[in-house]
């Protein structure tokens, strides 16, 4: 009986998550994306619902909310469904959509055949992916551990790349408008520069159009006279050619230099425009930070920047000194307080609530952060042709991200709660995942530092290019 009530509770929460995923999809992504494909939204919302259910089960585990047996059952059901979606269904549908849009074959059955072939190829690569890594001790095929280990690798890699980029980007943005605040004069200067370059481009293009118009008039003028008397025509043509050839050569030479100039100025104008957009974004952020809510986030942002820098440092230490944390921060914090402040309190009781809060915060912020990143990413790379495929790829990424989140969250939980994760996910080498996360995190942070530096350099360069070309 209790199993039934537990199932009902979980089912209700799953429906709530499903509705939330559907709403997110339609609110955030639909505005820029014309989707008529029910299956795409369905798989996205389903992936989201299953991921949130798994997080919810972790929280229930800490709170000891439902029966352990029913928790375990729901874990396994959720995991199987998730794996089915991530490994089988979504890649199949992505291959099907890609082959449909390429339009090589029109016959439906042939497309299905090619999709199956592509999907088998994908499964083969997916399998081979796990071989170089020391993931699992078991050597059976098609077991849950094998699938999860491979999904975990991809997810952990994605997570580390995103975290690395975020950890570098956050201090950079706070530093940028802390050090160099943007004034109205900067923005109006940037606008004037852009307008000036646009006028130059327009003037040059008008010149080109006028010259081409004159050329076409001359050729029709000449050709209309070709029907006249031969000897007059002969005389006229020799005179024309002897007088016009230096000027037409001159004109065509001018034309090609003007066209070359136009290309240069168009590049300058697009670079100036992106700089202007960046400046306006910074100014908007400054204005937002003057409001009350903005001040709160501003202060939080500084703390978060410090945390990011600390995290990069710690991952570097972890790799260099080859250590993987065994104890979660909650227990360590409690041990420290007991040790240094000599406070005796009920460790069991407090550790449960503190770890619940910590895990809850981690879960909520990672879901929110991922959804925001997905939205931004989607706006940047979406186009009307391939939106369906992009949404499915994002759903796949989200599913893998959440599974690896669960793998890594294990480290943040006290030992007595880790049991269910180890039990459900099987016998994986969890330490390996942490080490892999640290490596990729560090690599991605270094890479992002390089990219941001190049971005900064190119914006400096565009201003110098403008000065060189326009102010002469």
């Amino acid at each position, binding site marked *: 009986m209790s199993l039934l009530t537990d199932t009902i509770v979980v089912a209700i929460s799953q429906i709530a998550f499903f509705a939330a995923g559907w709403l997110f999809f339609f609110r955030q992504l639909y*505005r820029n*994306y014309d989707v008529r494909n029910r299956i795409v939204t369905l798989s996205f919302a389903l992936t989201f619902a299953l991921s949130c259910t798994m997080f919810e089960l972790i929280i229930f585990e800490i709170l000891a909310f439902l029966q352990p047996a029913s928790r375990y059952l729901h874990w396994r059901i959720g995991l199987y469904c998730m794996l089915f979606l991530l490994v089988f269904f979504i890649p199949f549908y992505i291959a099907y959509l890609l082959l449909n849009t390429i339009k090589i074959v029109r016959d439906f059955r042939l497309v299905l055949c090619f999709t199956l072939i592509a999907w088998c190829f994908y499964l083969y690569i997916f399998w081979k992916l796990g071989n170089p890594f020391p993931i699992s001790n078991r050597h059976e095929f098609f077991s849950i551990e094998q699938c999860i280990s491979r999904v975990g690798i991809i997810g952990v890699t994605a997570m580390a790349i995103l975290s690395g980029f975020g950890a570098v980007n956050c201090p950079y943005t706070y530093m940028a408008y802390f050090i160099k605040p943007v004034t109205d004069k900067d923005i109006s200067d940037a606008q004037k520069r852009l307008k000036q370059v*646009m006028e130059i481009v327009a003037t040059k293009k008008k010149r080109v*159009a006028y010259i081409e118009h004159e050329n076409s008039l001359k050729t029709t*003028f000449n050709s209309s006279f070709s029907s006249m008397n031969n000897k007059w025509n002969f005389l006229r043509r020799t005179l024309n050619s002897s007088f016009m050839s230096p000027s037409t050569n001159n004109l065509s030479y001018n034309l090609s230099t003007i066209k070359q100039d136009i290309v240069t100025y*168009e590049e300058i104008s*697009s670079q100036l425009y992106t700089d202007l957009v960046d400046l306006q974004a910074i100014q908007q952020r400054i204005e937002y930070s003057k409001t009350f809510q903005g001040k709160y986030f501003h202060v939080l942002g500084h703390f978060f920047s410090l945390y990011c820098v600390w995290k990069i440092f710690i991952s570097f230490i972890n790799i260099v000194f080859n250590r993987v944390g065994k104890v979660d921060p909650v227990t360590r914090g409690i041990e420290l307080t007991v040790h240094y402040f000599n406070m005796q309190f009920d460790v069991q009781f407090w550790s449960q609530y503190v770890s619940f809060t910590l895990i809850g915060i981690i879960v909520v912020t990672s879901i929110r952060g991922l959804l925001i990143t997905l939205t931004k990413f989607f706006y940047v790379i979406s186009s*009307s042709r391939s939106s369906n495929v992009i949404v499915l790829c994002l759903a796949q990424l989200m599913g893998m991200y959440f599974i690896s989140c669960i793998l890594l969250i294990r480290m943040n939980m006290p030992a007595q709660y880790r049991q269910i994760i180890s039990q459900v996910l099987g016998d994986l080498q969890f330490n390996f995942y942490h080490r892999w996360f640290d490596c990729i995190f560090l690599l991605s942070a270094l890479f992002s530092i390089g990219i941001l530096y190049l971005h900064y350099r190119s914006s400096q360069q565009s201003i110098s290019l403008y000065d060189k070309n326009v102010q002469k």
Partner: protein
Amino acid sequence: MGTNGDIPTLVVLVLGDSSVGKTSFVHMVCHDQPLSTPPPVTVGCHIEIKLYERRDRHHNPNLYFIEFHDVGGSVQHKNSRSSMFYDEFNGIILVSDLTSHQSYDNLKEWLYEVIRYRSRQKLPTEFTPDVLQNFDIPILLVHTKLDESNGVSLLDNSKSPNVMNNNHTSSSSSLLPNFNRKSVLANLFNCDEIFINCYSNKRFSVDTPNVTKLNSFFEKMIKKASVEPVEQLPQFEWFTSENHYIH
């Protein structure tokens, strides 16, 4: 109207969602041939110039520079667009994609963005048709990707005064770029619309119905922007043929 030497310039804003084909359309109109590959996403504003010749039978041709400001349509740049590009223009071309109904629905929002920027009062955030009363700048609607549209119809079946009303059921599923039937937005804005495939191999100047509509749009802009006496504008079509110099 700005002048360059002695040839006046008219500015046309080309607006629409991202990837509907604005840059391809503008290139087709100005250079009379399609681009070889689809262009990259426009960042900022891409400028193209067309030298427009007006002819009347007895005088010399009038030349005008038509400057197309092809504004990139991505959502992120919404705030920077208005103050930069919406300041001066003589006409607006709204471009939508026949394969995406969303881009057609968003045309109202694009026009509203421009109206809101230009009007000094505070306007509500939802588009209502009465804001168009004070807006008298010439508009043209362009629908691209005609070859891929597969018979989608944008036509406003309820308002058509056509005698072909009884043939609606058979013809409403086919695309009819018919002069007498217009889509909802074209009726709302009271303007013309062009259906075009920007990558067809035909030159644009031989596509007579579309050229006619485009030229009448240019004429409307010229009439509004200058104070020319009306007798220089007889009411029949102008052809932009560069090669009829001598009658």
